């Protein structure tokens, strides 16, 4: 009632207030206006109040309108096809927690398909139905991993909404500049103005946008104000030059090596070392080369492959002489002088030098050998681990596929499965430098030999959907695991990945696995049924994913 404006005539309002006061105090204490005291007083009060109540309600008028919100910016993207819009509604309706935990059964986990659906919709550039934005924002609020894709899909109207609802503030924080529109990237004047006057987040957004379009222009923009920026800001701006890094950036980076801030210096050094032609890389190469040499005089160690014959055939061997000091030049080039606890100073410096030296150095230094031959060389005095790990970091930083291949070795090699010189995490990073097909093939080979127990991390870096050989390897390995009689939840991680990553066209090949198999003697009780259930879920999910893609393709 208070929300709508009161009827116009003030006397009536006064009469009503008189009634309310009398009612609060009671007619024993106060006589209602217009009647005498006595037993009839309460009835008279109720009569009058009834008339007033209906009168007040019948006389209600609309209130004055408040300041209307600014209209949301136009979303130029085409709307979703209808079937896809319905699918999104269903995916969003499946919020976790509604029915608690428990066994997953044969039905697909819809929440896990949302990221994929969003990626597919974004790739096709569709706009969401506006009425689903609240559910979409709520989903993104609960799951930070969803946020980038969800917000990209949600588009400008979601940011408009987020300004009205404090629950969705995260959307403004996650979007650089709070969703403020960037100036057109050809408009030099407004770019310069925003760069000089904008908020930090807006400036970062502007710099990254410009960098991905015109790297040199972004660098030049940064140089105009570099000297006056705060240290933290310099670090962020410098880091955004990682995109589109090229030889042209070298002079600027060299200058940043002399920065007042240690973090800025370290970042500049790291970026420079990713440019194999840079002067810094050359200086690091000289330092690293000084530490590593080939010794042709090492006697062959008797091994299983070549039993000792007594002769002294010399095998070329790598010897390492770690640096004895970290001079100011090294420090200027980004070498951190103080080793972390538990590591020897000299090996710490050595690792950093090798990591920052261009990989091309080693072929030249080590007698024209190929990366594969170099990696195969024995190393003296237990330096192999340190040296190979540094080469791994260098291969990842310089995105050198040939070195990565050499360091990864054969996927079927026995040491590939166990803890060797190269850990699983490092392998996953090295795989990232190979192209998708080669990556899939290597992981497929790895799984065929070593099974699934170590494969989770490696599968994570493979392109989705999995290439046919990889998909086949995973399915075969799951089949083997089932025949071995263990429970499927030992493989729930890989199973979940397979549901999301296996190519939907593989669904047909799984048909044979859907039935409950006869239980072998040594199997865990009931495992066969659970495996059938898990495979059914896998197939159902694959079919669903195929349908999802299909819906997005029909417009």
């Amino acid at each position: 009632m208070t929300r709508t404006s009161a009827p116009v005539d003030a006397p009536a309002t006064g009469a009503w207030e008189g009634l309310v006061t009398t009612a609060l105090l009671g007619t024993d204490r106060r006589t209602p206006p217009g009647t005498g005291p006595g037993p009839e007083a309460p009835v008279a009060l109720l009569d009058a109040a009834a008339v007033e109540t209906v009168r007040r309600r019948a006389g209600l008028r609309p209130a004055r309108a408040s300041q209307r919100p600014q209209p949301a910016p136009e979303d130029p993207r085409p709307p979703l096809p209808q079937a896809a819009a319905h699918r999104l509604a269903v995916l969003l309706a499946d919020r976790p927690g509604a029915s608690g935990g428990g066994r997953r059964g044969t039905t697909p986990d819809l929440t896990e398909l949302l990221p994929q659906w969003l990626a597919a919709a974004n790739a096709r550039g569709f706009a969401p139905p506006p009425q689903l934005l609240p559910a979409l924002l709520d989903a993104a609020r609960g799951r930070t991993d969803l946020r980038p894709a969800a917000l990209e899909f949600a588009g400008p109207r979601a940011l408009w909404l987020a300004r009205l609802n404090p629950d969705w503030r995260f959307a403004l924080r996650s979007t650089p500049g709070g969703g403020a529109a960037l100036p057109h990237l050809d408009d030099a004047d407004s770019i310069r103005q925003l760069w000089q006057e904008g908020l930090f987040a807006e400036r970062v957004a502007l710099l990254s946008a410009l960098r991905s379009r015109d790297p040199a222009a972004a660098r030049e923009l940064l140089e105009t104000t570099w000297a006056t920026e705060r240290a933290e800001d310099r670090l962020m701006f410098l880091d955004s030059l990682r995109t589109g890094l090229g030889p042209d950036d070298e002079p600027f980076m060299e200058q940043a090596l002399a920065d007042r801030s240690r973090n800025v210096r370290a970042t500049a050094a790291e970026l420079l070392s990713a440019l194999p032609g840079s002067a810094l890389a050359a200086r690091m190469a000289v330092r690293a080369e000084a530490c590593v040499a080939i010794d042709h005089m090492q006697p062959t160690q008797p091994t299983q492959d070549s039993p000792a014959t007594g002769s002294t055939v010399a095998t070329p061997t790598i010897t390492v002489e770690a640096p004895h000091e970290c001079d100011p030049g090294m420090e200027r080039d980004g070498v951190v002088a103080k080793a972390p606890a538990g590591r020897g100073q000299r090996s710490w410096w050595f690792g950093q030098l090798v990591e920052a030296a261009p990989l091309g150095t080693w072929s030249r230094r080590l007698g024209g050998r190929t990366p594969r031959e170099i990696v195969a060389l024995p190393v003296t005095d237990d330096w192999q681990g340190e040296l190979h790990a540094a080469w791994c970091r260098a291969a990842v930083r310089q995105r050198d596929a040939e070195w990565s291949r050499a360091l990864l070795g054969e996927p079927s090699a026995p040491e590939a499965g166990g803890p060797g010189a190269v850990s699983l995490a490092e392998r996953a990073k090295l795989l990232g430098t190979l192209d998708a097909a080669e990556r899939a093939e290597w992981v497929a080979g790895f799984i065929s030999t070593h099974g699934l127990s170590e494969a989770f991390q490696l599968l994570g870096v493979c392109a989705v959907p999995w290439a046919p050989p990889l998909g086949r390897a995973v399915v075969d390995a799951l089949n083997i695991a089932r025949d071995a009689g263990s429970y499927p939840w030992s493989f729930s991680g890989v199973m979940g990945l397979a549901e999301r990553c296996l190519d939907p066209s593989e669904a047909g090949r799984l048909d044979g696995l859907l039935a409950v198999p006869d239980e072998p003697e040594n199997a865990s009780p009931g495992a066969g049924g659970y495996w059938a259930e898990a495979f059914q879920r896998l197939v159902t999910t694959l079919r669903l994913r195929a349908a999802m893609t299909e819906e997005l393709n029909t417009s």
Partner: protein
Amino acid sequence: MTQQGVRWTADQVLALAPDAASRKAGSKLGAAGPWSEAGSSDEGTVWGLCKGSGSKPYQTIVDIADASGPAYKCSCPSRKFPCKHALGLLLLWAGGDGAVPTGEAPEWAGQWIAGRRKRAEEKRSGDSSGSPSGSADPEAARRRAERRAERVTAGAVELEQRLTDLLRGGLASAEQAGYGLWEETAARMVDAQAQGLASRVRELGAIPSTGPGWPVRLLEECALLHLLGQGWLRRERLPDALAATVRSRIGLPGSADGPPVRDRWLVLAQYDTVDTRLTTRRIWLYGADSNRTALLLSYGAAGRAPELALPVGLTLEAEVSAYPGAGQLRVALGEQFAPPAPTAICPQGMTTSQAAARYGDALRDDPWLESVPVTLDRVVPTPDGDSWQLADADEDAALPLTPAARSRPGLWRLVALSGGAPVRVFGECGHQGFTPLTAWPEGPGEAIALC
């Protein structure tokens, strides 16, 4: 008849779910995976076999051609209605990606459908032959009604006494007396077989805890209760229509004996209110030809969904008959001539000033009316301090949202749909403000349920 082109939307299907858990479970089954031998017929039947945890798949059939909303049959043991399999099957059908082709019903489905059709046919011919239903002895019925009226009168007199006692001592004391006093009075009204009075009394008990301004609200409700009691005690002197309104407000049963009105009825909104005893489902209908809004009420035991469910945004060609009483919008659904089908019908809208005036006019027929159903055209959801209002796009006038509507998720769907632009909104407009229930975007676009 239902053709391939007019399948329902997923939202409409999900609106049938009895609770959130079924919604979720149904959504999961709305994929081709567990289904086999699914199909649909042009007569509006959908069937399929759903693989469950057992060896034998469940046989699920849904008949959407039925006059009183969809009918379901499933061989699963669930007591939910509809069960998740029926929901999943409808979702699969609504998805329309070829998983549910048109075809001939298998035997297990055909039998059930044929049985239903036959029973419906018999019922219809039975109705038209005019077999008298209800009590055979009109004299006994009259005596029963008289006895009940006496009880209600006794209840009304007692209630009047309580109200005058309250006013004599002052409302301030009601705050201390608390809930118990009112619960007891409400129980007395139940004994007096005056459900309408009982529920109003129960609501009185909650008012002192509703925050600032409660004395005003309490006095208003006491006064209206007094008005209702007085109306009952003097019902002989009231015009017939108003007396019927009083009877229905008191809670006496009426029968929908108004003349049947055939129309294309658009389902405007459907929502449930739940208290400890009863689930009440309200379905608002809009007659495209008569330009009339009507209310279907159905009830379920506490915690269970009423059976009648009509998806928002569909129209059904049907007859409805009104319940008696001045200004009463309640109707009963009669014969339905075609299954619900998607439509482009959208009710005509009005301005906020017209809506407020509409409520004022309606009070003339029924002073106890909380709100009237209206469709607002060209309004913009606008933040107003902590609250929201629907502001006219073209006038400086706005209706505030009711406190309940402010905290519902539907508010944000409405705001998102609008994006600061005018939308058309159907809802209930009353003295507490406006409750939006359904919205349409400007230009083309389907109805969006907000409740």
